């Protein structure tokens, strides 16, 4: 049973008196212990989707439709939960955030309040979710210390520090520790390594893998880096113009992309491993969400596009059907059978000569 089921989620931004949809009907299921990666360019709606799941949209943002169902199995003392996050209000919404689903943000440099010590920010988070709002100092220190040690930080040093006294990598680790302090079942990571150098990036990714194995939370990893995502995630979904346009296992998308956009993304990102691919950029720019063309929204940038593409939006088509419980490979492209990765196309050409 999925811990999070998203159905036809639509999110818009008010702009000049009209509503522009940035997320246009997204469906996915997130299972316990699973890592799902959402990949796309900036403007593809992936960050909006992440914020929307926690109902953290800016003032101009608005969820216009769909359902985000959160389920947690009951235990000896806890009742089973099953509700639509979009219907939560007030204290219930406040408590859903962070204790059920936590989020690690892009702007890691600035995620902590600069005028409060890290320890105080652990304490206020835990107090905000304590049943009576009361929690002993020792309890806080112990639980915060646990989480900090699991991200390889020294609690004695970090808890008494102000954010500016820590390095960028340390701050990001501290934020990840803070995200785990309430043991949420879902962790959303929005570009968690973007502002960090390569070595720190590597360390954080390894650490996230370990933490997930250790603590068993489900993870949504939002990134523009398909290579990084495919390394961390069991399942990868590519987003374009507010929709998921391809989804499958990390291997499916990374080795055999069936949507020209995914293939382009692989070409556009120089990989750390996997040899020296010549970076090929995707021609053109993402479409204006306020004036989307009929048919496939990628057609104008696509070298595979045929006339039919400009009139029909196919939706996700099955590429490789796998039995229940496993991830199938789907792509929203009429010509998925013809799609080849740029490098593969290059090899074909050479072979042809």
């Amino acid at each position, binding site marked *: 049973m999925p811990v999070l089921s998203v159905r036809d989620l639509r999110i818009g931004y008010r702009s000049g008196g009209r509503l522009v949809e940035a997320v246009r009907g997204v469906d996915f299921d997130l299972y316990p212990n699973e890592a799902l990666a959402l990949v796309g360019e900036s403007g593809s709606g992936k960050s909006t989707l992440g*914020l929307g799941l*926690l109902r*953290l949209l800016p003032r101009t943002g608005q969820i216009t439709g769909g359902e985000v169902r959160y389920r947690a199995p009951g235990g000896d003392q806890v009742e089973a939960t099953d509700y639509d996050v979009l219907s939560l209000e007030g204290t219930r919404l*406040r*408590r*859903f*955030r*962070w*204790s059920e689903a*936590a*989020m690690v*943000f*892009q*702007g890691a440099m*600035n*995620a*902590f*309040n*600069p*005028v*409060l010590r890290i320890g105080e920010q652990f304490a*206020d*988070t835990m107090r*905000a*979710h304590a049943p009576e709002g009361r929690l002993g100092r020792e309890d806080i220190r112990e639980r915060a210390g646990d989480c900090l040690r699991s991200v390889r930080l020294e609690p004695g040093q970090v808890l008494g520090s*102000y954010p*500016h*006294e820590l390095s960028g990598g340390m701050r990001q680790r501290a*934020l990840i520790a*803070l995200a785990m302090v309430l043991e949420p079942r879902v962790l959303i990571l929005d570009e968690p390594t973007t502002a960090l150098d390569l070595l720190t990036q590597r360390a954080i990714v390894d650490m996230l893998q370990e933490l997930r194995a250790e603590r068993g939370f489900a993870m949504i990893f939002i990134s523009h880096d398909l290579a990084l995502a495919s390394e961390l995630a069991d399942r990868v979904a590519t987003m374009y113009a507010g929709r998921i346009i391809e989804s499958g296992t990390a291997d499916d998308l990374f080795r055999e992309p069936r949507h020209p956009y995914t293939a382009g993304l692989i070409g556009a990102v120089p990989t750390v491993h996997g040899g020296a691919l010549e970076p090929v950029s995707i021609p053109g720019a993402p479409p204006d969400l306020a004036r989307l063309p009929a048919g496939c929204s990628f057609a104008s940038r696509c070298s595979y596009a045929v006339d039919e593409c400009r009139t029909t939006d196919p939706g996700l088509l099955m590429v490789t059907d796998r039995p229940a419980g496993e991830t199938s490979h789907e792509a929203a492209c009429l010509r998925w059978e013809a799609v080849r990765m740029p490098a593969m196309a290059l090899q074909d050409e050479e072979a042809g000569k």
Partner: protein
Amino acid sequence: MSTTASGVEAAAKPEAPAGLARRIWHNYVLRRVLRSLFVIWVVTTAMFFMLRLLPGNPVDTFIAQQIRGGSTYESAAATAANLFTFDPETPLIQQYFDYLWALLHGDLGNSLDPGTTVMEQIAASLPWTIFSVGYALLIAIGLGLLLGLVMAYRRGGFLDHSISMVGSTLHAIPNYLFAIIVVVFGGVQLGLFNVSETRGTHTAGVEPGFNFTFIADAFYHASIPVTVYVLTTFGTWALVMKASTITTLEEDYVTVARARGLSGRRIGTQYVGRNAVLPMVAQIATQGGFVFGSAIFVELILKYDGVSAELYAAVNDRDYATVQGILLIMTIVIVFANLLAEIVNSMLDPRIRESESGAVG
């Protein structure tokens, strides 16, 4: 400027034996205190020489006045010698050091008002100004910060628009003009308060002391100037605070705080409010000094006997010692208000302390 200065210091004496001096330099508060004292010294010196360089020294002016008044030169000169603690015959530099030395002993010289020292005059008038202006600033800033915060949270709403309009209109009226309006319309035309009763700093016959009657009376008399100061300044605070709050609301840590499920009140005070106030502290200090300085007109119009009324009288009487003394004391008050603001700022923002003491050393 301060960072480069301390950098030079540190570079010039890498392992200076004067470890104490360095430690003082690196102490945030001590360094600010030293700098404030330096500013006061510069102002004192400038004021001393500027007054001496004015055409016609005060002694000659006084003697000429006395002679015009009918006394002989000899008696006028004798009175002048008694009144003025300096002798125009001694070299200027000697006078300067004498003045500084007396100043260090709290001696600002004698007023032209026979039998009173400048210090006594200031002691009788300055507390009233500090009381009324300080009290007004507290209310205006408190009110402004609160309104600004609310306006930023509900921007575009009714409250936002109306406070913006009222605040900026009132801000555009100079406070002395506003004081006249208050007296003429509020006091005389509409009879909202009794103009003659609220004149002065307290009712004659009420003994100053720590008792309810006196305190209530003091607040009653201060209420009109305080109202004028508050109404002419709170709008500015509110608008500045609104802008600062809007910037803060867009900070990542505010979104993260919401994601963390913190209560709205905790986010409003510790995350938004506290960070939004930071850039305003310096402004509060300078604006506070401005209100203090412009109190002179308001006090004159409202017949509130603060230090400004005293200064006005001293200028009219060519009472140089008193003018000099009052300006000096006002400088000191403003410099220390700035010092206080900087210390408050460093308490609110850990980054200020660190960046100046830690990074440079």
